[in-house]
């Protein structure tokens, strides 16, 4: 019944995240015809520097549907929405003020670690489903705009998104064992994400090691190789954050 309780607690966030990502994915597919129509209007190699390089890269990639999807969605739009969804699913839990019956739960003959594990597993399962459902829409809806998108690509990208998202999920999860309001874990994790993204922009050398690089499946898109190192590192960080969560909760006085 712990699983049912965890589901009840996260149900709405799951559905909202699902809706958000699904609409986003569908939206990007259906926007393609319009982008194709606009492409010829992009001035050729006029603007210099970083901005010019980006515009040229976008235009180049967008000639092809696969490239368009990667650049526009996996690289640009999805990371923001996905990070928010991951954080959303990671907050809440026993310590949160709004959570009813905290003392009741704690009076049950279960260890706090088990409570956390069930909650984390449920949240991660939901996270995985949201990723999967969203990316699967791409190959399913592509024919509607006269294009094709490989299921294999979708699944791999989904996996990368999930692995990277799990990091933010677990960070929010950890912070939720420290703060009893729902806001601070959310804001702090999002702030951390923003800081990470900014560092990635400013210090270009860090880009290959960034979690956002894993999230967008950059390596896979460019080379066809799965970013095993990135996924493993993300998994490692997630596991570490979860361990700290269990220690944190075990120490807490209610």
């Amino acid at each position: 019944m712990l699983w049912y309780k965890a589901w009840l607690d996260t149900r709405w966030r799951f559905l909202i995240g699902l809706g958000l990502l699904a609409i986003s994915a569908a939206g990007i597919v259906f926007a393609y015809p319009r982008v194709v129509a606009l492409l010829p209007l992009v001035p050729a190699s006029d603007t210099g520097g970083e901005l010019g390089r980006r515009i040229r890269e976008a235009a180049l990639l967008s000639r092809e549907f696969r490239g368009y999807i990667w650049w526009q969605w996996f690289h640009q739009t999805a990371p923001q929405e996905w990070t928010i969804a991951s954080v959303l699913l990671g907050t809440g839990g026993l310590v949160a003020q709004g959570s009813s019956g905290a003392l009741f739960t704690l009076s049950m003959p279960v260890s706090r670690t088990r409570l956390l594990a069930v909650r984390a597993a449920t949240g991660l399962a939901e996270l995985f489903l949201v990723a999967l459902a969203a990316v699967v829409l791409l190959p399913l809806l592509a024919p509607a705009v006269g294009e094709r998108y490989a299921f294999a690509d979708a699944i791999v990208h989904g996996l990368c998104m999930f692995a990277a998202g799990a990091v933010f999920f677990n960070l929010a999860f950890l912070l939720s064992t420290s703060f009893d309001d729902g806001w601070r874990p959310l804001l702090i994790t999002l702030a951390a994400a923003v800081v990470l993204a900014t560092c990635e922009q400013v210090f270009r050398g860090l880009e290959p090691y960034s979690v956002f690089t894993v999230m967008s499946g950059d390596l896979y898109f460019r080379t066809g190789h799965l970013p095993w190192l990135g996924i493993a590192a993300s998994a490692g960080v997630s596991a570490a954050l979860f361990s700290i969560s269990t220690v944190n909760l075990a120490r807490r006085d209610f």
Partner: protein
Amino acid sequence: MAESIVVETVELHKRYGAVDALCGLSLRVPAGSIFGFLGRNGAGKTTTIKILLGMAHPGGGRATVFGLAADDRAASVEIRRRTAFVSDEKDLYDGMTVAEMIRFTAGFFPRWRGDLEQRYLRSFELPPDRKVKALSRGMRTKLALLLSLSRGAELLVLDEPTAGLDPAMTEEVLQALVGHAAREGMTIFFSSHQIAEVEQIADAVAIIDRGRTIVAGALDELREKFRRVQLVFAGDAPEGAFDSPGVARVRRNGRVLTVLATAGAESILDRGRALQAVSMDVVPVTLKEIFLESVAAED
């Protein structure tokens, strides 16, 4: 007769930030008793209960339930397997229905008593399909009680069980507790402000104040030991004549001395006679007076 002790704390300490919630609290709850835990707000009742159930960690001292250490994680799970707890907020899962709460709780206790569940569902008149958030406070208390009484626990811990309940519902709750304790032989440990209800159903009590136990013992013994003696003297009442163990309080008012004795009135009467008191009256003391005097003495 060696009584087995179900709950024991020895010099329990707990500090929250700058506040000392518990300053060496010791108590012993005998098996099969109904034990009342009395104290003012902030005296440390809820903190003690939380430590016993593994919800908070002691700062010092020892707490054991069923002989198991309350601050050992594995032991605490075992304690909770055999204990039922009703918090003062009667906090349950707002989003679940009554039936779902029962199923949820029953899942954790292999010794769940379906017969008791049915009995209390009927006698408490709880609607199975209503959500917890739609229940009145009295109904929530009854549901919380049903969930604790049906799980086959050996110990029931209640934090202010009748707080906020009207007299009729209070009586229903007390009746359920008394009946259940008699039938199942379980130990009941409950904290309360309501002295009347403690006096009605408890075998033994502990009065605590400022994180320490002031008075503890079997209720009947306490009732026999506490006496108020009023002595009238011909001249001004003597000062300091009754400063001795066995005296909780002495009040002088001109020629009248009022002594609260905690170990019977005899020695007070002897002293009174020796001091040539003109008249001496002995009156029994209620639990309420014992409580008020004990915590006032600490101020």
